[in-house]
């Protein structure tokens, strides 16, 4: 048993650290993406036509460009546009993490806002009309009446999107974020025990993915039951 890769505490620490970075990247960008997606949905479904067109462009850009390229644009490209002082600041403050986090957030928000929007459109018109006739303004009717129902209606695609975002966090390793995938590659390079470490990494990713799928299935069952 001593020969096992995971018997070496250094590698365990490295993997756990990578797992922590992956979890942090996923959690932060998921929360921000959900908030941004709700905002985008609100703008797309009610704001002035020019604002709607900007949201449309935002969504289409993020849906038609590979996630990897979006991360490259943010990591390699955007700092060039910033003033020197800000470039240095970004470099000092975990730049690759922050920039990949921004890229992943925008990427996921574009998809999620579309899911929310189709959820919103599936609601009967009476919901919005009733809310407005009760004296709620647009913001209130959206926040208290429409958004909660839209969330429930779009739960299955949102879960799929959550899973896609979790898997997409692995792309951040290409710009040097020390996530789980990065730790895996590092251990592989040091030990050449590719099979073992890939197996461990696959198990980690699968465990979390299945957790997300399971939680999604449970939530769909629960909330669709509450609906009737």
């Amino acid at each position, binding site marked *: 048993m001593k020969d096992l890769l995971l018997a070496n505490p250094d590698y365990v620490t490295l993997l756990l650290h990578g797992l922590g970075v992956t979890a942090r990247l996923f959690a932060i960008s998921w929360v921000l993406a959900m908030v941004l997606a709700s905002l985008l949905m609100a703008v797309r479904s009610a704001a002035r036509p020019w604002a709607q067109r900007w949201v449309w462009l935002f969504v289409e850009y993020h849906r038609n460009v590979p996630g990897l*390229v*979006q991360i490259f644009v943010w990591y390699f490209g955007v700092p060039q546009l910033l003033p020197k002082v800000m470039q240095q600041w970004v470099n000092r403050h975990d730049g690759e993490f922050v920039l990949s986090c921004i890229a992943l957030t925008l990427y996921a928000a574009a998809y999620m806002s579309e899911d929310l929007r189709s959820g919103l459109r599936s609601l009967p018109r009476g919901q919005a009309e009733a809310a407005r006739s009760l004296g709620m303004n647009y913001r209130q009717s959206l926040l208290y009446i429409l958004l909660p129902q839209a969330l429930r209606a779009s739960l299955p695609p949102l879960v799929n999107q959550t899973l896609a975002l979790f898997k997409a966090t692995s*792309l951040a390793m290409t710009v040097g974020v020390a996530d789980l995938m990065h730790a895996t590659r590092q251990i592989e390079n040091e030990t050449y025990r590719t099979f073992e470490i890939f197996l461990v990494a696959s198990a980690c990713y699968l465990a979390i993915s299945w957790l997300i799928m399971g939680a999604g299935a449970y939530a769909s069952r629960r909330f669709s039951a509450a609906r009737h």
Partner: protein
Amino acid sequence: MLDILRDYGLILLIGQYPQGPLGGLAMTLILAAAALLLSFPLAVLVGIARTSPYRWVAWAAAAYANSIRGLPLLLLVFWAYFAVPMLTGGGVSATAMMLVALVVYESAYLGEIVRAGIAALPRGQQEAARTLGLGYGATLRKVILPQALYNMIPSMLNQFVVVVKNTSLAYVIGVDELTNAAYQVNGQLLTRPFEVYALLAITYFIVCFSLSRGVEQVERRITAARRSRPA
């Protein structure tokens, strides 16, 4: 940005070809098309297996699909990079390894599309075919699959757009495709990363956006054809 396009546009389009290997956008599209075509028969098998009346077959197919869908494609690319040379005894190009990773990954997703297509057919189709004395295989081949596959054409074409985007990961193992070409151009220019990567993003956008629009046209036509067909 235009001068980059003028100086390096050809590299982004076809790589070093004809002096060297084909690369750039041409390689991206070839890789995506090959991946989709090769994963199609696998996906049909996965879809049939998932709707199989034999419970253990359905269970095994579900385990396969859910495992592949739970892994990041990047990890599958690394797996292929490690496992394919070992299984074949070497001499395999990075492009072929990428193709293997893409085929495995897409067969799981396409398999779900096939399953959904089969499940969406009215039960009466299967029951009527069985009542007429067709066996399980003949029912699938002559009644279920022709209808299910036709209805799935839009989803499958949409999957092509997804595959085009997924081929960008080939850059990680050094395949000469579009993302890799941009990476090399950036390496030569050094000081203009924003323009290079913006150009790359715009290229993908134009390709994928027009493909999506094309798929919408096909979808509209198929929906119309299905409506006009007597039920």
